[in-house]
């Protein structure tokens, strides 16, 4: 999907989001879900303060901050981005500025603005996608950029008496996807690698790929342990849609894998993209997953899979 189309879809989402109220739902342990602000927003609270995963669309931040303040009066210390898209990072500036970074000694003394606002973490490719070489206009305003990035595959931290781990999933939905795993609360945030509202959006222009998407879904399945009688246990917060557990992610993983296999088999038969699209290879899943328009339609998903599988060759 072209950048312009993505932007227009996000603008549409922004209009919808601004018209609806945000809703807060307890997930498990210290973790809460805020919906209605674009992409899902996850909030972890505790004695030390507040940690926020993704910030929704620009223009929804007042409502999001009000929802966070109902959960905790303590300072927002960390903001984490699961990936680059504006429906998950649009509120970066406003949410980050509402927080604070605690520093000490000569750090605070020498760098007077260091304590202003929360720290904002993302995988390094998010920064690469948001910024531009010197002298060129960056695609995203600098105020929305991460303040810290990681490149080592994972970024662990310990906050509110809980291990929190960002785990990079290369070339999945994009090339800068992070899972965020709250290990004590047993909640896993997936960003748009997993959504319950449509087919996954494989953003080929930003480094996504179907194999990376499937690999990431399998990683999530390995991390998420269902409870007794195959229910609950690790809760999974998708990028869009509702709270799930491992058996529900499993169905999504199966669907993505099966569609990939079908498209791959069609390519082996020499079928063109148009022929594959016309073959109705996703008819069994369309009623459940195909968006009516924009991001996440069957047509868009099949095209992304076709191009991604073809690129692999």
């Amino acid at each position, binding site marked *: 999907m072209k950048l312009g189309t993505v932007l227009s879809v996000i603008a549409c989402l922004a209009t919808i989001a601004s018209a609806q109220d945000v809703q807060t739902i307890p997930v498990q342990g210290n973790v809460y879900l805020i919906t209605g602000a674009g992409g899902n927003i996850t909030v972890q609270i505790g004695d030390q303060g507040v940690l926020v995963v993704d910030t929704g669309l620009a223009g929804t931040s007042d409502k999001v901050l009000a929802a966070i303040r109902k959960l905790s009066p303590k300072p927002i210390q960390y903001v984490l981005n699961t990936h680059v898209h504006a429906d998950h990072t649009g509120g970066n500036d406003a949410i980050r500025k509402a927080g604070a970074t605690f520093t000490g000694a000569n750090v605070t003394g020498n760098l007077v603005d260091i304590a202003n606002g929360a720290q904002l973490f993302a995988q390094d490719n998010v920064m690469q996608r948001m910024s531009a070489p010197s002298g060129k206009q960056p695609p995203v305003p600098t105020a929305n950029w991460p303040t810290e990035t990681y490149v080592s595959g994972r970024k662990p931290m310990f906050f509110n008496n809980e291990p929190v781990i960002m785990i990079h999933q290369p070339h999945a939905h994009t090339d800068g996807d992070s899972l965020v795993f709250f290990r004590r609360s047993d909640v896993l945030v997936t960003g748009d690698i997993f959504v319950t509202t449509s087919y996954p959006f494989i953003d080929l222009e930003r480094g996504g790929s179907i194999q990376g998407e499937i690999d990431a*879904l399998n990683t999530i399945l390995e991390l998420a342990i*269902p409870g007794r009688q*195959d229910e609950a246990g690790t809760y999974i917060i998708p990028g869009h849609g*509702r709270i799930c*557990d491992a*058996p*529900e992610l499993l169905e999504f993983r199966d669907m993505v*894998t099966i569609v990939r296999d079908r498209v791959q088999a069609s390519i082996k038969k020499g079928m063109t993209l148009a022929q594959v699209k016309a073959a109705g*290879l996703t008819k069994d899943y369309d009623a459940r997953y195909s968006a009516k328009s924009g991001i996440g339609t069957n047509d868009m998903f099949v095209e992304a899979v076709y191009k991604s599988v073809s690129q692999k060759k």
Partner: protein
Amino acid sequence: MSSAAKHFGPLLFLGSALLLAQGPGGYNPEPGVDLSGNWGPVFHEDAHERGPGPELVNYLGLPITDGARMYALAWDASRFTVPEHQCEVHIVSYIYRGPLNLKIWDERDPVSQKLVAIKQYIDNYEQTRTIWMDGRPHPPDAAPHTWMGFSTGKWEGNILTVYTTHLKQGWIRRNGLRHSDQTTLVEHFIRHADHMIHVSIVTDPLTLTEPLVKSQDFVLRVQTGQVWLYPCEPVVEIERPRGAVPHYLPGENPFLHEFADHYKIPVEAALGGAETIYPEYQTKLTKSTPAGPSAK
């Protein structure tokens, strides 16, 4: 009778009557009947499907969409061997079909004794189900879905009617036919002395072209029901590459004709659809080509 009793007796009687009629914990008969007890299933209906299990590619009499049929034809029973699939629980819209002991009891407010919920323990898969009777709303859309869903009930005369949302994807028939997580379920529990009929109406516009109505029978067991435990520990049964999902590519299901040929019915009938429910379909079949051994 003492003088005081003569004077205050009528007042005491009136006061007691008022308390009984109106006071908390007083005699306010609730609607409905008592479903409490241990119930066991009667299998004379659909026994073959409910016991050993349905044949592959037997979708007869089910009002499925083309998409649901395609899903089922792609489904390979070997998917049960994938560790993550091994412990999957039968969804509430299907679980009463299986062999099970069903225990039902009331959950009442300890002070007022008002009915808060009707609870069920289904020993197959160790499921405890709550049917809320206190008028609470269903959870928001973003709340988790479960095997038993979120149920609220009301008495319609002596029939307990239950409405369930927040279901996971689950079986329509356990040979690959699935309903979606958008499914809603209406049930009626109807007791006639020691016999109970359970009617379920599954509505899912994504996989069913019309509601799917089924019924199951139960009998009251005086003897305490056998309590089956259902511990499930997934294991690797077949070594596969990471993330492999057993399935058939479109048009390649090797069992497409097996059931139809065995019972000498046309494959088109075996593939189901709302039309195959109704008697008129028999007339249509007699006009079509008789089934015989089919070439794969």
